[in-house]
């Protein structure tokens, strides 16, 4: 793992915040860093108790669709989203989220451990103790998310 030099240029001349990464190759360590940066930057809006909240996707454990409505789950709260699950999937596509079933997208950054089930599925334990199931059709891409 090569040493990373961090250079910050602060000036009122800049209108936006831009992060440029100069590197010879994007290795695993750098890929993790890039995913983390993206996770911090992507925000979703969620409704709870008639209020709209801005939620950073890094805080979400998983997103589930029930009866055509998407719900955002963090450690202790559930928010309702206006977006459909496929729309949310597009928003979080370069982050640590991955679809594990027809109705569920999970944040792999909040997976504590996984185990294989005899029926060809996988069970993932999340950091809050909840368990989610990776359906057979999604097992291949789930493995690739971690192992490639």
């Amino acid at each position, binding site marked *: 793992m090569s040493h990373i030099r961090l250079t910050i240029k602060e000036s009122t001349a800049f209108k936006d915040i831009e992060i440029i990464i100069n590197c010879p190759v994007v290795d695993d360590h750098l890929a993790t860093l890039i995913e983390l940066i993206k996770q911090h930057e992507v925000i979703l809006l969620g409704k709870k108790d008639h209020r709209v909240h801005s939620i950073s996707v890094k805080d979400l454990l998983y997103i589930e669709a029930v009866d055509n409505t998407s719900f955002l789950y963090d450690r202790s709260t559930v928010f309702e989203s206006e977006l459909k699950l496929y729309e949310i999937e597009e928003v979080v596509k370069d982050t640590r989220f991955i679809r594990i079933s027809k109705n569920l997208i999970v944040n792999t950054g909040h997976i504590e451990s996984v185990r294989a089930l005899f029926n060809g599925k996988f069970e993932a334990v999340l950091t809050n103790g909840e368990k989610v199931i990776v359906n057979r059709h999604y*097992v291949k891409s789930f493995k690739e998310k971690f192992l490639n």
Partner: protein
Amino acid sequence: MKEFKVYLTAFTMSFTFSCIFYLLFSYIDVFHSFDENTLITMLFVSLSITTLIFLSHRLTIRSSLMLRVSECLIIVGILLIAGRYFGMFPFTPFYITAVVSIGLLTYTVVLVVSYIGDQASAKKINSVIQSKTMEERQ
């Protein structure tokens, strides 16, 4: 391509183990000796079963139990057709029982080998999760 590899692996395993089980049954004189015709027949049976299982996986069967039942029915169905219409084996209760046993034994072995492979993948994934967690804490 990767999905094709999964089914190719399943086909190869099922062909190999069905041949092994046939040889064992042949050794104890349940079946006649293993010859070229037997080999070709086993190849077509394994290929037919794998193809039909691949097609059944295209259906939206949500229940794992129903999926396994459908896979077993495909195996038994193909074997019975092979015996009844293609003369693969004498179509008597004794031989039907022996052949179906081979089929279901082979299926079990393929499932077990796949499960062992998945367990190995789960172990690797857990190792990756642990190293990423340690990296982020540093």
